[in-house]
């Protein structure tokens, strides 16, 4: 394995849950030193995932949350209470040795603590400061609170995930917590490049709802340019609908309980291939040979394809269709794509980390391999304050006595 791309970068990281912690996680995987800062007074409980399920065994506690471990691998963990006088004296020293400060508290929280961008800039003029929240630092909804499902609802992502004649299905998880993390990482990395070039720091205001709204841009343009609204009488069918139009295009039943397969015929050739595999008189109908013809008979066509797929094992049919060049994918259960999918295994997508209390645990890997400075994920998330000595002693030069004293006072 090669060098660490970001070994010279240090991030002072207040950000938690997935939308925040997921961003600095990417930097940490490529070698940045990310120092996760948590409040000892409530045992880091601001990050609701800290002690939350899933758990590896019967033990419970603030160091044993499975999702927290996933989102905070390769980070150092320190405690610091910004509501104490000595904590407020200490924090600027952390800022002074950091390239980036990141937070995803509700808008305005850091300003009220006296540590907004303007104040941190006074401490370190070239600091890069990421503020990541639901509606951003300004505007009428600035005080509003969000989590993934609310971000997705307000931004149009929930509405555009549905079957015809049904209410919105939305995203069955906090897709935009991942999205917020990705946009946050991109903003920090771009700002680091700008800093390398100009020596200048800056403030990054990331509103998850705005980031999410950029993800449905074509639908927005159809409205602003053509005046066409997204809500129509026929409704959304996001399994069928695609740009460009394809038919068949959908998720069809397969043999077994709650087993499904997605098939996309990109063009007439894909359809001809599929029709040959189906080997039934209806599939040979010349009227179906063109996309126009298939779209005109959409309901019957999709029903017939579904009746055909229902007899097959989803993954066997996937292999068969893929071998003849038609895009197909079994709707894989978590256990199937994690433990039985040869591609994710070959990629090394589920690395095992060592967590001080939880032991060996598998986590999400990185879906990119870099030829020279690849990622590394080996260390689990920090226990609360696990690296106080390393950071306050090793980096800030504080003595053991001083650290013990501050710990006893509730500062650390």
């Amino acid at each position: 394995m090669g060098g660490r791309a970001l070994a010279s970068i240090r991030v002072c990281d207040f950000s938690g849950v997935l939308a925040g912690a997921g961003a600095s996680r990417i930097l940490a995987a490529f070698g940045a030193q990310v120092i996760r800062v948590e409040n000892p007074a409530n045992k880091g409980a601001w990050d609701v995932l800290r002690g939350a399920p899933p758990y590896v065994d019967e033990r419970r506690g603030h160091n044993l949350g499975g999702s927290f471990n996933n989102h905070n691998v390769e980070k150092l963990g320190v405690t610091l209470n910004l509501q104490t006088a000595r904590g407020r004296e200490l924090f600027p020293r952390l800022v002074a040795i950091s390239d980036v400060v990141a937070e995803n508290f509700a808008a305005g929280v850091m300003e009220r603590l006296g540590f907004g961008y303007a104040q941190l800039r006074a401490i370190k003029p070239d600091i890069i400061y990421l503020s990541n929240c639901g509606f951003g630092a300004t505007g009428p909804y600035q005080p509003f609170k969000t989590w993934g499902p609310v971000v997705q609802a307000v931004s149009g992502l929930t509405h555009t995930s549905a079957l015809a004649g049904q209410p919105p299905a939305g995203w069955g998880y906090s897709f935009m917590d991942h999205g917020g993390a990705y946009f946050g990482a991109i903003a920090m990395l771009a700002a680091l490049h700008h800093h390398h070039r100009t020596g200048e720091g800056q403030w990054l205001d990331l509103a998850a709802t705005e980031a999410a709204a950029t993800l449905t841009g074509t639908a927005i343009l159809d409205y602003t340019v053509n005046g066409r609204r997204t809500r129509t009488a026929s409704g959304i069918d996001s399994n069928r609908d695609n740009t460009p139009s394809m038919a068949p295009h959908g998720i069809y039943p397969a043999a077994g309980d709650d087993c499904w397969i997605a098939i996309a015929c990109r063009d007439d050739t894909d359809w001809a291939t599929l029709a040959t595999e189906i080997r039934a008189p209806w599939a040979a109908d010349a009227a179906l040979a063109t996309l126009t013809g298939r779209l005109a008979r959409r309901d019957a066509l999709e029903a017939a394809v579904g009746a055909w797929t229902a007899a097959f094992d989803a993954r066997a049919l996937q292999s068969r269709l893929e071998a003849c060049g038609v895009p197909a994918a079994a709707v894989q259960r978590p256990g199937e794509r994690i433990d039985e999918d040869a591609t994710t295994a070959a990629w090394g997508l589920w690395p095992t980390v060592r967590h001080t209390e939880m032991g060996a645990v598998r986590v999400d890997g990185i879906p990119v391999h870099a030829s020279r400075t690849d990622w590394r994920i080996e260390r689990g998330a920090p226990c609360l304050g696990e690296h106080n000595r390393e950071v306050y002693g090793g980096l800030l030069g504080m003595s053991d006595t001083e650290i013990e004293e501050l710990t006893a006072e509730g500062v650390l």
Partner: protein
Amino acid sequence: MNAPDAAGPLTDLRVVELCDEAGAWAGKLLADLGAEVVKVEPPGGNRTRGYAPFYRDEPHPDRSLYFWHYNTNKRSVTLGLDTSDGRGVFRRLVARADVLLEDQPPGRMAALGLDYADLAPAQPGLIMASLTPFGRSGPRAGAPATDLTILAGAGPAWSCGYDDHALPPVRGGGNQGYQTGCHWAVATVLVALLHRDFTGEGQHLDVNMHAASNVTTEAGTYQWLVARETVQRQTGRHASARPSAGVQVRARDGRWVTTGVAPRRPREIATMLAWLDELGLRDAFEQWPLLELGAALDHDISVAAMMEGGTDAAIYGAVRDALNFIAGAIDSYDFFVGTQRRNLQCGIIYSPDEVIDDPHFRERGFAVEVTHPELGASFVYPGAPYRLSASPWSIRRRAPLLGEDTRAVLTELGITPAEHAALRATGVV
């Protein structure tokens, strides 16, 4: 807050993009942060120029709104890579670039003699990012895929859909499988760029869309990795190993809202009761006495108590019912703002067109005007996903017309007008 006329953080970056629908979003993200992105298209145009919808519904290579959205700020150069002259120009284009971004099927770049191994010896600082469905190598490299099949196979679809499992899992709309791959491509291009800033070394990035969506499924993945539990899809809310109560309600005006997690603190329960009174709906909500009990509790209702049954569970059920009752009794926007002003995390389910008109998005300037001189018009585009105070995101130019920048870029490469004419005569550009 943005410095006026300041340039984006990537203004010194030159990118060559050879992308169809899968990778164009990555090029846009880089271009909107200031990079010069040259999109190389076949002389007949990139196929996404033929994707609907079109301006005034008139199909035309310069009127695809799909192309408009995904290609802001880019320059367009037409170049036939099936000719050796075309490949020669491509090599010269890459030679002056920092990043080559491509989403071609595995093997195509090598067949053209334009793969990383071909280009890097002469240009060790080159960063090349290859976006493919399953990565450049491995068991399914080269297997065909679309956004639908990626999201179906990689986990997102398993978690999305309805309580009724007779209905299939749902793939969310808007190319999110492609875009997720692009987010990883851009983040890692920037990682590689910083490494090059520090060392001068370039590298090749193998970006795997199936893997990207696999690590973009939140609990779907870690519930299995940590506890070997399988989440099950539910209408409009988190897929879960344990069923949870419904959260989507159709408001009085017919639009849906999401009510999320109902409050469990006495003060918040009192707020709900007061809201019912304000609306004159206390008597219409028969469980109001339970809200009175809840408002008088000397403790918050715990998650454990909610599960156990008894008075606290009954109160919590009534609070949830009250939230849903109010949602159905007033208009969706009033519910959204009404809950949020009362410190409850609820949302309105907007369609994309409604987002751009929302007062908050308007006030923050999310809607940006982009001029289309060729049409003598300007249009509102979705704006910045992030605000960078010193080096702002911007749309400086609409998507390029087909081949709009070919002449200028060839001139920059030192190709003479006579050479250009010859390339044109042979159909290379």
